[in-house]
């Protein structure tokens, strides 16, 4: 990404901190939380070639655990967050052992089954999860005396979390483990013969993807102050997969673009268009037809072509 684009993106991210309408600041918070969620799935789908249809499991589990530990058990926010992150990462480690026994459609089906199992548990284990009613009454923390109940301080906190997550994911992509994961996506057989333990590389990446989805889950539960089985539903896993594919799988910017697209269509457009789901479908159809590689790489290629045009005439 050029410096100019980076400055532009920085200004765009800082904008909700200065605009007055809380609605737009809240929408921006939702976009960044969804972007971390999508970026976590992108580790598997884009860089690992492992298409998961159960990624809501990690966002949902972290959200439930944070709500349960802080509301029902009465732990402090810091303890609840740390325990939720650790437990969700441990769950991802266990799920990875099961899911990575297969690849391709088998992997997709196992992740789907695991996600649906958790969704069923959230519905039925009423004593802990509150069943269909979920867990209500989650209050936002006040780190260092900073009250996060107002939209702007909450957005600032989410922005910091987003920047940390994106920096860690960008570092991962450029690291040896990132290179091993991408190599395992493209030529697993050759990678094994080059000394890479492909299974281990994919498993570590699976756990990291679960961890960053859990981070998004913490943001999710504090944003909504509520959690219900919907957070673990298949539609949530499918939606984040669409964010990754629409934005550009295997790119750093793609999940942010995809998240912005879905959240804006869902929150803003649905206020004006009754059949907004149909519009969402049409937008995805257009992306698949005209920019199959996704919006971020597609826009980059389009800009490249536009820049090259005058040179070609010369």
């Amino acid at each position, binding site marked *: 990404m050029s410096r100019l684009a980076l400055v532009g993106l920085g200004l765009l991210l800082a904008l909700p901190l200065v605009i007055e309408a809380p609605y737009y600041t809240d929408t921006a918070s939702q976009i960044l939380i969804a972007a971390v969620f999508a970026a976590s799935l992108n580790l598997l789908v884009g860089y690992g070639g492992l298409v998961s249809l159960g990624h809501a499991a990690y966002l949902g589990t972290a959200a439930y655990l944070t709500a349960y530990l802080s509301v029902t058990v009465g732990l402090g926010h810091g303890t609840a967050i740390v325990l939720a992150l650790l437990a969700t990462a441990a769950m991802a480690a266990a799920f990875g052992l099961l899911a990575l026994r297969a690849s391709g459609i088998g992997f997709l089906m196992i992740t789907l089954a695991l996600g649906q199992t958790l969704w069923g548990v959230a519905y039925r284990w009423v004593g802990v999860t509150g069943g269909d009613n979920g867990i209500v009454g989650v209050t936002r923390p006040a780190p260092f005396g900073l009250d996060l109940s107002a939209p702007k301080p909450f957005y600032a906190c989410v922005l910091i979390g987003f920047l940390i997550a994106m920096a860690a994911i960008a570092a*991962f992509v*450029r690291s*040896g483990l990132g290179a091993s994961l991408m190599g395992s996506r*493209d030529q697993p057989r050759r990678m*094994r*013969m*080059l*000394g*890479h333990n492909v299974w281990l*590389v994919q498993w570590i990446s699976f756990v990291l993807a679960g961890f960053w989805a859990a981070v998004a889950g913490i943001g999710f539960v504090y944003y909504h102050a509520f959690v219900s089985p919907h957070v673990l539903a298949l539609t949530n896993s499918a939606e984040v997969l669409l964010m990754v594919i629409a934005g550009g799988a295997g790119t750093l910017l793609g999940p942010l673009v995809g998240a912005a697209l879905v959240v804006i269509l869902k929150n803003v457009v649905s206020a004006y268009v009754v059949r907004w789901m149909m519009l969402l479908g049409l937008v995805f159809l257009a992306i698949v037809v005209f920019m199959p590689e996704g919006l971020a790489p597609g826009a980059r290629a389009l800009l490249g072509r536009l820049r090259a045009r005058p040179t070609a005439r010369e």
Partner: protein
Amino acid sequence: MTASALEIRALRKQFGGLPAVDGVDLRVPAGDRRLILGPNGAGKTTLFSLITGELKPSAGTIRLFGDDITGIAPYDCARRGLARTYQILTLFPRNTLRENVVLALLGLSPLRLDPLTPLARRRELAERALETLRLVGLERLADRPLAATAYGEKRRLEIALALAQQPRLLLLDEPLAGLSREERRDLQTLIESIPRSITIVLIEHDMDTALSLADSITVMQHGRVLVEGTRAAVVADPRVREVYLVG
């Protein structure tokens, strides 16, 4: 007695009821250039996949420089000094030639599991990749994407990836397949330049080139070793003539 780089005993591999490798015994001394010959379906590539751990044997043992490597994972074989090339190119299509070699170097480095250190900061990896590319005459194309690379150069890159692993035993599966006469000659020179500290086992159908590369030859048919010996002995053997004339 010369130490064996590779020692195979009573190796069998069955797919369903069909034996693809059927009781193969093979001993390759260290430093040897061994050619494996045989018609299509003789079990040559299956034999390679059994040695590298890509296939699990039904029976038998495989020893690499005395260590039993029977049935161990390919990545473990690679770390014990075994490298191979593939008959069908198995390279990284989205990467440059240098990045392809870096992935080979990474396989034997602890950096392969490091999620934080940027590879770009590890200049020694890029420099070693360039040195390896120089060995196979591809250093000027180091930053070219694989997709923009000619087939003959990709064949050289296959060998570069294997050499980057600093193997003790190198298995070359039809390295000359699909090349023009000039390219075959150049690649033959490259294979001849590989130091004798690396033992080579080679499958090749281009008889003229292969025979000039080999110290000794093993001929396989129907998953079994038919004849083994020096070039002169094997070429003169009537059973070999029969296999190649009758098929």
